[in-house]
């Protein structure tokens, strides 16, 4: 149960980018997990060559990823959104991006499992008889911090509110005097920047290969949809539900069904309540 909560915090961190980009901007960026893995490799390289802490690297790399995200969005915008044919072809576009990133990584770094070192990996603290691994606790806390930061960004800052407006009411946005494309670029950049941190968290938890992204496509979108498309609090709730469900299944019913159960939950949720748990 505790393990599930910790896992949930981490899942939330991984899914925030999707929640922002897909949930709020309605851009089906299925390449997001590939960006996360890219973040993992950045963390790996910095950790190996300079001994930098993975999560610190993740944080340091956010501006780089932000720019990367902004560039990708511009390309996307110029090619699809402006022509008004975003959904289907945009999806394929990101599919291609996913492959390009994945294969570039495996060409450059090979296909061996990569891990990072940190003082807190392998240690745990005892809380009321339950050992809590720092390896999971740290990502969970960072994940929560990211959730909070993103929530504050969206609710307190001008740009954040503009992003919310973009997703709901274009007219209101124009009244605010903001350029939707610019706002979307910012939001997309932030989403990709979140991937940088999420990637660093991922590699602290488990070893990573370039194709690890495929394991996360489903989870990320499941959480976003379950959380109600762009609701940050919903994302957190959904992530925790998924984490707890996976953990409980592992402990009590045999782990081999845990993945199927989380996706079963997704399917049922989609069929019964497409708006998600905390839908708009």
């Amino acid at each position, binding site marked *: 149960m505790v393990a599930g909560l910790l896992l949930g915090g981490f899942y939330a961190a991984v899914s925030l980018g999707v929640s922002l980009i*897909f949930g709020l901007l309605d851009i*089906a960026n299925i390449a997001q997990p590939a960006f996360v893995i890219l973040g993992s490799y950045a963390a790996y390289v910095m950790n190996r060559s300079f001994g930098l802490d993975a999560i610190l690297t993740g944080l340091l790399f956010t501006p780089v990823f932000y720019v990367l995200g902004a560039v990708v969005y511009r*390309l996307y915008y110029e*090619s*699809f959104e402006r*022509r008004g*044919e975003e*959904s*289907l*072809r*945009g*999806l*394929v*576009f990101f*599919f*291609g*991006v*996913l*492959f*390009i990133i*994945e*294969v*570039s990584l*495996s*060409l450059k770094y090979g296909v061996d499992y990569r891990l990072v070192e940190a003082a807190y990996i392998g240690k745990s603290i005892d809380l009321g008889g339950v050992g809590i691994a720092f390896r999971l606790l740290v990502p969970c806390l960072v994940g929560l911090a990211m959730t909070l930061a993103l929530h504050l960004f969206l609710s307190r800052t001008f740009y954040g509110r503009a992003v919310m407006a973009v997703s709901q009411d274009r007219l209101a946005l124009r009244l605010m005097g903001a350029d939707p494309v610019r706002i979307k670029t910012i939001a997309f950049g932030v989403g990709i920047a979140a991937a940088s941190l999420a990637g660093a968290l991922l590699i602290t938890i488990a070893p990573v290969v370039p194709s690890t992204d*495929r394991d996360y*496509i*489903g989870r990320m*979108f*499941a959480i976003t*949809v379950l959380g109600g498309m762009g609701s940050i609090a919903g994302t957190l709730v959904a992530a925790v539900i998924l984490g707890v469900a996976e953990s409980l299944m592992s402990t009590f019913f045999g782990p*081999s*069904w845990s*993945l*199927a159960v989380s*996706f*079963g939950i*997704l*399917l049922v949720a*989609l*069929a019964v309540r*497409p708006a998600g748990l905390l839908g708009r």
Partner: protein
Amino acid sequence: MARSTRTLLVGLAVVGAGILLAALRVNPYVYFAGYVILQYVVIATAWNILGGYAGYVNFGTPAFFALGAYTAVFLIQSTRAPLPVLILAGGLVSGLLGLGIGYLTLRLRGVFFSIATLALSIVLQTMIINWEYVGGSRGLSVIRPSGPPFGSYVTFLFAVMVLLSVVAVTVARFIERSWVGRGLAALRDNEEAAECMGVPTLRLKLFATTVSGVLLGVAGAPFPYYVTFVEPTSAFNLDYAVNALAMPMIGGTTSWVGPVIGAVLLGTAQQLATVTISSEMNLFIVGVVLVAFVVLAPEGIVGLVRRVRGR
């Protein structure tokens, strides 16, 4: 009338040519590579009926393909049923799954539908992994029946695949040119408006998902006999999802020729790349080509050709 007769003739001619090619017993590699490419012709065509005509992007192609394959495995294990029965059964079971996801479209549109199909694929894979009878996660070796026509079993499978591709393409072409195809195009453009203009959208969607499912299952059913070893990771390979989507995109989604051209081009390129350059580069190229096409030639090769002709 004359038109449909001619279509029939052309179809028969292709089947005939395929069987002739099989009977010629040229270099066996042609049949192996040809089988894979034709398998992709069926898959791409099937995907396009739902994805291209109706605008519902199915990421769960591997689920349908593998369901066809595993239905065959099950029947081979239990009754050693002959290949035609396997193909029919594979198509039937996958078709039922297609009908099932058709009902999902009642509530799920656009990307939500795509994600649901992705989830479906994972759930199905887990079920197969935990089903020991068909090999579970360890996989299962399938022994081919002896004494096939054309000397070797793969040559026979090649001939079967020629037939299946012609059937698939004919079905797609028929749908495209009929009132069904026009209705699907209308609901792809705007589902609400289509319904209000009298298009029975639910029925058409169920039709499209079912036909697409049947054809994907049909493509998967001979697979166990082709590889002789079936295990979940390769049967549910993401490559099928990528190719099913990439091939029509490259060829062009609005016409039946698109998936065929895309499958033949990309399939051939992949077969050649597997035996020439590294397959990492191969995937890389697929990625780049895919992005280039959706950015620069959104209507695929068919669209490009039309534009050049100035139509």
